[in-house]
């Protein structure tokens, strides 16, 4: 378990960090204005090119990073209002260095892949504009030197995911998936905002008016534990929204409506990891609030298990991977929740590699199967798409935690820390291990059903299945290599200056090896059910029909949300508008006007036209006045 207060890093002011964010933005401008006119070839060159440039600059920053220190590039003061002073400043320290390398590295590969994947889509300029904008926002998120800039990136990526999910906007269903993603994210962001406010004012109450990470870290001690707990929980709400944890994960499975490379980049490698990065960045707050950490761990573990169970029965290739991502994110939160911040970030990195690979592999399969996504109509692709199959196999082994590959190192590190760290507990470890088994099972189920056996695809689809072009397979291979060797770049020493020193956890052998055994068991079971005895899956499905249907319908969570959240809100607003606004408020307004007019009609009758009536009213008036005086 790291002790949280590392010595304050020595800071070097530099001025080139801004270009890391600027290059993708230039790409965006190029695509918007020059894109439609300049033709596909230029776009395919420029868009990945800008991301590559950012990658080189990030790498340069990594090299120039002083040991245990940080690079800060203050561009200009953004907002000054009263006591709030926010600068547009970028910071690179070991944590953000890892993140920008992942984002630009994996991002670049995915950009290259996309040029192939979107080869015959005519709206490619708009696609790459969004993709570049996403990269820029993600880089801003991880490079932001204060909480507000992080939030700017946070919402920026939310916007890009909305745009990219709804990229093929002509289909209503895809457009509403994008809308759903944005709104659920916005709910999370609302919590995030509240966290920022509470942090700002509680620090302010102590006379410290700031939002920048460094100052927060130095003055964190001033805050009461209860306030810090509430702050951490609020920020965690934002994290659940962005990183798709219970209860705000519902948008991720629907986000598969977007193009596959988008899912690979946004919904596997980078955006969904924003929540983890945020908690890692504010680790000093979370370690001050044990209850908050416990909540993070529990939610993480539960989500991991919950999502894994759903993934068991999904038939759409991308949905399986989506739930797998939710589950793996659960693992990362579990890691963070037990105080093993570097383990969590390490798993984040390895996950980025193999999950991106899985998605791109799935993309190339869908591409080959002329947009067929249901695995029950696939099969036997092993021979026809060797490279995709090979890389897919490596990724499956990695995610299943097969010893030697990256997944094994990062996942097991988390599970070990769950037991060893004071914040951890054996129950969480048990859930983690069980989920490891489930993960292995559904990954290899996917592998066997899609690649092994004979093709169940209809004839005209089957006969022109072919391996994807090199521009798509080359990223697959690279990612496979990364997934393979990723495990050996254990980030723990590299991240030590950020999270404080770390002494390796020594645990019993059982704890160390049981997860691997569970993984292998999962693979075996999958092999048995889908290769040795294909009918077995059917039999199991019949025997536990109720459970099967429950899992297939994703525990009916979407329907519940719709019934208990969306419908009541819409009904309430209909009522508010129809009844409250028009009848009650407008009614009173028009009512007063009518009553005055009614009195007018009444008074008008006073003019009967008869002189003597007038004389009478005259007399009455006179008598009243006289009466007043005689008393």
């Amino acid at each position: 378990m790291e002790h949280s207060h590392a010595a304050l890093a020595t800071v070097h002011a530099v001025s080139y960090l801004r270009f890391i964010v600027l290059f993708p933005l230039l790409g965006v401008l190029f695509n918007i204005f020059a894109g439609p006119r300049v033709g596909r070839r230029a776009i395919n060159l420029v868009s990945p090119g800008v991301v590559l440039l950012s990658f080189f600059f990030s790498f340069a920053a990594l090299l120039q990073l002083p040991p245990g220190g940080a690079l800060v590039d203050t561009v200009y003061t953004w907002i000054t209002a009263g006591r709030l002073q926010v600068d547009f400043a970028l910071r690179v320290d070991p944590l953000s260095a890892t993140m920008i390398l992942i984002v630009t590295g994996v991002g670049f590969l995915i950009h290259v892949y996309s040029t192939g994947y979107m080869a015959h889509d005519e709206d490619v300029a708009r696609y790459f504009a969004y993709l570049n904008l996403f990269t820029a926002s993600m880089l801003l998120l991880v490079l932001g030197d204060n909480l507000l800039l992080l939030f700017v990136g946070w919402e920026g990526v939310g916007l890009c995911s909305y745009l990219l999910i709804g990229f093929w906007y002509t289909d209503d269903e895809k457009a509403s998936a994008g809308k759903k993603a944005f709104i659920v994210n916005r709910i999370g962001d609302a919590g995030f905002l509240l966290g920022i406010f509470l942090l700002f004012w509680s620090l302010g109450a102590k006379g410290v008016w700031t939002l920048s990470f460094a100052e927060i870290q130095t003055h964190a001690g001033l805050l009461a534990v209860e306030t810090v707990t509430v702050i951490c929980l609020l920020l965690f709400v934002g994290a659940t929204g962005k990183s798709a944890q219970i209860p705000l994960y519902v948008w991720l499975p629907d986000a598969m409506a977007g193009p596959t490379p988008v899912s690979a980049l946004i919904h596997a490698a980078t955006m969904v990891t924003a929540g983890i990065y945020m908690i890692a960045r504010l680790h000093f707050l979370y370690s001050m609030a044990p209850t908050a950490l416990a909540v993070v761990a529990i939610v993480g573990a539960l989500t991991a298990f919950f999502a894994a169970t759903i993934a068991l029965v999904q038939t759409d290739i991308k949905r399986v991977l989506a739930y797998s991502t939710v589950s793996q994110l659960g693992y990362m939160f579990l890691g963070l929740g037990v105080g093993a911040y570097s383990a969590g970030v390490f798993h984040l990195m390895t996950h980025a590699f193999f999950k991106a690979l899985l998605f791109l592999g799935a993309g190339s399969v869908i591409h080959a199967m002329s947009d067929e996504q249901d695995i029950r109509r696939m099969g036997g692709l092993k021979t026809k798409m060797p490279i995709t199959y090979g890389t897919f196999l490596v990724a499956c082994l990695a995610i299943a935690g097969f010893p030697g590959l990256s997944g094994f190192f990062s996942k097991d590190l988390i599970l070990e820390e769950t037991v060893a760290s004071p914040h951890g507990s054996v129950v969480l470890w048990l859930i983690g291990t069980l989920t490891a088994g489930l993960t292995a099972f559904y990954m290899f189920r996917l592998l066997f059903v899609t690649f092994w056996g004979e093709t169940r695809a209809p004839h005209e689809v089957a006969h022109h299945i072919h391996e994807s072009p090199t521009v798509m397979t080359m990223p697959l291979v690279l990612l496979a290599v990364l997934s393979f060797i990723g495990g050996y770049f254990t980030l723990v020493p590299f991240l030590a200056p950020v999270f404080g020193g770390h002494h390796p956890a020594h645990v019993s052998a059982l704890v160390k090896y049981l997860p691997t055994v569970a993984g292998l068991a999962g693979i075996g079971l999958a092999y048995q059910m889908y290769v040795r005895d294909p009918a077995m899956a059917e039999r199991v499905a019949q025997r536990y029909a109720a459970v099967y249907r429950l899992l297939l319908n994703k525990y009916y969570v979407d329907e519940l949300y719709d019934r208990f959240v969306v419908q009541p809100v819409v009904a309430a607003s209909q009522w508010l508008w129809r009844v409250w606004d028009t009848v009650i408020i407008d009614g009173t307004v028009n009512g007063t006007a009518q009553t005055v007019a009614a009195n007018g009609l009444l008074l008008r009758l006073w003019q009967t036209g008869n002189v003597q009536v007038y004389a009478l009213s005259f007399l009455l008036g006179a008598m009243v006045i006289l009466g007043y005086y005689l008393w």
Partner: protein
Amino acid sequence: MITPPPVNWLSLLPGLILTVTGLLILFWDLWMKPEERRLLAWLGFIGFVAAGIVSVLLWGRNESAFNGMLALDAYALFFNVIFCVVGAMTILMSVHYLETVEIQPGEYYALLLFATVGMVVMAAATDLIVIFLGLETMSIAVYVLAGMWIRRLQSSEAALKYFLLGAFASGFFLYGIALLYGATGSVQLDKIATAATTGGVSSLFLVGIALLIVGFGFKVAAAPFHVWTPDVYEGAPTTVTAFMAVGVKAAAFAAFARVFLHTFGSLHAEWEGILWVLAVLTMTVGNITALVQRNIKRMLAYSSIAHAGYLLIAMVAGRDLGGAALLYYLVAYGVMTLGAFGVVLAVGRQGEPNEEVSDYIGLGLRYPVLGAAMTVFMLSLTGVPPLVGFTGKFYIFSAAVQAGYIWLAVLGVLNSVISAYYYIRVVVNMYMYEEGGKTIEALSARPALVTAILLAAVATVFMGVFPSASISLAKESFLPPG
């Protein structure tokens, strides 16, 4: 030989000029050929202008004449100018109108002049009986004027109603004078004032005041006594209605203010309660009933009742605050209402009189100048800045607030909102409806009427934006106490 008493002729000069012009018109009319009738109008106009100029020249004098019966002071001269302007404008408006409604011009202009003489006397009178005399000369002349549109039955009915109720009211008024005479031993205003301050206020005195309020209430068309106004205003020829709405009302207020604000100034506590109630009643009845009116003349009648209500607020605000506000608002009200009636005249036609509010549909678009003028008058009557109506109301309400009658001001303000509806409805009809709408005679054929309207419009805007000149005039001319 009885030496004629030293008569201060100067104090009578404006009245004399008017009387002489009236008589001249009557005689000249005898041997005039029908087509030369228009000249009479110009003679009358010159008479009014001359009297007006004389009053201005006499400015600054402060003498009493006919041993205390008449006063030649800024107050009287201020009102003289108002009456002459009103008279002149009425003549301008009626030059063409008389031909359409076949009224004998000769008698018409003479009666106008004699009525104005009555008003001048009322404004200058410092003796109750002289006020009564002025009141009666004016009223009798206006009774006849109201009935001169022989073609139309409503006109004679209006004259009858006005006559009967007028006489009835002056009965009460006279009874009030008698009781006051009994209580104070004199009818001279200054003697009454000293009697009020020195001696105790006997119940006879109070009843006298009450009856005076009733008499003035009728003339000023305050709430319970206003019932005659709509019928008479609708029935009478439009020019006479304008004359009545502005001239007669101003004269009534002149006497009312002189008697109550000066003579009974010290008894303010006695009568301010009654006037408070009267003011609220008048405003509210006037505004609310006007909402539902379809005939524009009747609507303007109720609007004049409502404005009488605002003027009563000025009265309630008392001498030092309300007096000047009253004078200023009278001028403002006069200008706006005359202008409005001018436009009503312009829209009226030989065939159907076009008096329904709905007849104004699409008018603003086809006759932009007329439309703009009417909009200015309507907005000013509502009290929208920067027009004179607003400055007038502002002056009155600030007087009321400073005198401590916050609620009166609030009620006055709410009434303005109600009034906004029916004034703006006319403007809405003129501009916001496209279909339908009547055509009216070419305006070029009626230069005099158009000049009157434009004069009124310019005055409404100018006095609103640069009111300081007229305000200081009003302040100066309101009689310093005693």
